[in-house]
């Protein structure tokens, strides 16, 4: 009897539940997104772009490892305990050397995130059109920057286009050098179109039109298209938004790091999202790991009265404020007797200041590139205006009729330690403006004139082999013959 009465009631409630909606049981997985359910609105776009910037913090990329390649130059010797840094400095590396390997995947990660943004952001409708353009511009620039670094280090590299991402066909052969350059050029032109000229204080640190123009100028210089370099470089040098900072040191202080001159820097910040760039440069006695020591040859080249010398270099007798106290620099802290002061910053209550931004592209660099292009096309004196703008800021008197040697000197002083010297020398060697072997076959000296014990021996630069580093052997192996090693490796 009882059973009979329950059955209709049960059936009835079952039907009700069914009607009310099984969707009560549907739960969206939280915290895991796919391209299918992300890229919905403005927040997603902004976060996605921030994610591309984040790759720059990586230690194996611009956080540290990219700068190891400048140990090849005559500006500095290696410090620290990464024995594999030795083979980079001495040109005895091979395709499985650590430093050669590790940057590759992070550059492609930056490309992958940018590709993602460029594929999916255009389809977002719930977004402010200005922000949308800005996001796309940033993605173009950051992708171009990753290919730029790949091109500088490896030369010919595979280009992973949006269609490859969508089809999953990643095993691409290397593209020719000009193809890579054209690809970078396209991205930078698109970025220059989409990016704003300046940002409000809340967005400082994002890349601007000037950054795109600046990198284009640099690209054209490396491409030997000097007239285009002048064209785009002049857009930067004549724009007040990208004026040189009042003081050289402003570029390297945490508080003023994102000034008008700083076109592109790694936005390291104390606490969240920081790089160990400052740790890799600071002396061991004061909290750092000491991986780069400038050499006597660089320090001696500064002219008297050059304000950049004291900003860039820590030398014997210098008073250094490490927050808790002011200490005197002892040459024994370094195998050369020097450190890069420009990259060492401490907090007022002690400890390293991770909010120091790592400079990746500055207007001063562009000024000097424009001057170089003008001197090389029109002869000495053509680049005086730009060179003197940089010199004036450094507290030096103007030059007239500055020639290529003066330009080389100015570049070395202005950009010491900023990962330009080795690439510059190779670039000039390729067009036979210098003989790079004469720079590298000399010993590197410490402050008292003795050859540096670790890393000071003269080196042999073999052309054209050493113009580019080898593609990581693991990638060649994994590609099963599609990826071919660089010549002479």
């Amino acid at each position: 009897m009882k059973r009979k009465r329950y059955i209709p009631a049960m059936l009835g409630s079952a039907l009700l539940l069914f009607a009310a909606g099984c969707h009560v049981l549907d739960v969206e997985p939280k915290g895991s997104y796919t391209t299918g359910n992300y890229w919905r609105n403005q927040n997603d776009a902004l976060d996605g772009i921030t994610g591309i910037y984040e790759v720059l913090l990586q230690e194996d990329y611009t956080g540290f490892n990219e700068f190891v390649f400048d140990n090849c130059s005559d500006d500095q010797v290696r410090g620290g305990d990464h024995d594999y840094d030795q083979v980079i400095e001495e040109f005895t590396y091979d395709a499985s050397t650590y430093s050669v390997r590790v940057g590759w995947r992070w550059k492609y990660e930056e490309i992958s995130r940018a590709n993602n943004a460029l594929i999916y952001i255009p389809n977002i409708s719930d977004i402010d059109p200005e922000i949308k353009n800005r996001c796309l511009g940033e993605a173009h620039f950051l992708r171009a920057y990753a290919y730029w670094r790949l091109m500088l280090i490896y030369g010919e590299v595979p280009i992973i286009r949006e269609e490859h991402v969508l089809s999953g066909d990643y095993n691409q052969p290397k593209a020719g050098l000009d193809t890579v350059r054209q690809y970078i050029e396209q991205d930078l032109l698109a970025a220059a179109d989409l990016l704003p000229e300046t940002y409000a204080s809340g967005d400082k640190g994002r890349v601007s039109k000037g950054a795109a123009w600046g990198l284009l100028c640099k690209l054209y210089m490396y491409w030997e298209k000097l007239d285009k370099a002048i064209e785009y470089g002049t857009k930067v040098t004549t724009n007040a938004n990208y004026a040189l900072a009042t003081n050289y040191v402003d570029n390297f202080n945490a508080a003023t790091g994102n000034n008008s001159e700083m076109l592109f820097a790694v936005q390291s910040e104390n606490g969240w999202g920081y790089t160990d760039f400052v740790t890799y440069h600071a002396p061991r006695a004061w909290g750092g790991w000491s991986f780069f020591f400038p050499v006597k040859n660089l320090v001696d080249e500064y002219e008297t009265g050059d304000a950049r010398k004291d900003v860039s270099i820590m030398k014997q007798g210098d008073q250094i404020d490490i927050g808790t106290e002011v200490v005197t620099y002892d040459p024994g802290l370094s195998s050369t007797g020097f450190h890069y002061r420009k990259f060492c910053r401490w907090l007022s209550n002690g400890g390293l200041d991770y909010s120091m931004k790592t400079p990746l592209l500055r207007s001063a660099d562009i000024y000097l590139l424009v001057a170089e292009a003008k001197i090389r096309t029109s002869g000495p004196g053509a680049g005086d205006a730009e060179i003197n703008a940089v010199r004036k800021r450094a507290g030096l008197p103007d030059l007239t009729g500055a020639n290529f040697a003066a330009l080389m000197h100015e570049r070395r002083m202005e950009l010491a330690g900023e990962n330009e010297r080795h690439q510059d020398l190779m670039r000039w060697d390729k067009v036979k403006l210098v003989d790079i072997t004469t720079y590298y076959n000399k010993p590197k000296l410490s402050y008292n004139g003795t050859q540096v014990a670790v890393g000071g021996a003269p080196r042999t630069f073999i052309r054209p082999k050493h113009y580019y580093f080898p593609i990581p052997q693991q990638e060649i192996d994994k590609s099963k013959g599609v990826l071919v090693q660089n010549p002479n490796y």
Partner: protein
Amino acid sequence: MLVPAPALDVHGTSGIPDRNIGEMNNKGWEVELSYQGGNKDFSYNISANASFIKNRVTRLYEEGTYIGSTLYGRQGAEISRTYEGQPIAAFYGWKTGGIYQNQAQIDNDPNIANDSRRSQIRPGDVIFLDVAGPDGKPDGIIDEDDRTFLGSPNPDVTYGIQAGASYKGFDLSLSFAGVAGVQLYNADRMQGTDPAYPYNMYAEMMGRWHGEGTSNSIPRVTLNSANQNNRVSDRFVESGAYFSLRNISLGYTIPAAVWKRTGISDMRVYVAAQNLFILTDYTGLTPILGYNGTGDGNRQRGVDVAAYPQARTITFGATLNF
């Protein structure tokens, strides 16, 4: 076999799901023999078992491809690779042939005849063998092409012996375990004998090469590693065979007559030991490595990253039944 999909780094750093496309083969046979005997007062039993297994990966996604594993230490050394047609997690590196004793040996060595680093190699450096070049034939250059199979961490024989005896109230049981035909890669020794590594070094470095004829196995101590003496090579591949007494227990059951008045029905006192001894030629802390701490599962085995040895324990006890 679930294998990680071949991940070219050009896709970035995102994870790729494994695919079930690998095949591995374990073939062999097992033997067990046992014997029991004795009489009322004295009885004994003994049994021995052994298993002989050969392991081979028969298929990966493509011929010539491999599965890598976690890199070790400061230099990011790649020790284990799993290739099709080889045992799983085999060691992969360079072969060596002693130490250069003098400059003439370096000048005449065909292994580095065309090597651009020849001028930086000094007496006291390790002789690496030129196994192959890009086309498979030796080319006089020591590079990636000369890396080859060095050994397998999969044992050929795993065996054990159990024995027991009892006489009147005494009982004794023993359990031995052993492994033979296995190689281990002493990664900690690779790092501990590396002068460029900024920590203390193994005591064996006191026997390093420091003049002609002083050593043909331990290279010179130098920070200048143009020859990269401490790269992944057969210098650190050692036999991991061992024979150990895992468990021994000697007990005595006290006759019931002694206790009958106190209400205890029986009592046995015993002394037992675990890991009493282990016989091995392996120079590391212990040849029993267990599962590799890197969490790489089966992709890396037998790599000693200073595995902690198992303790020898001796226990005394008594069992009482009321």
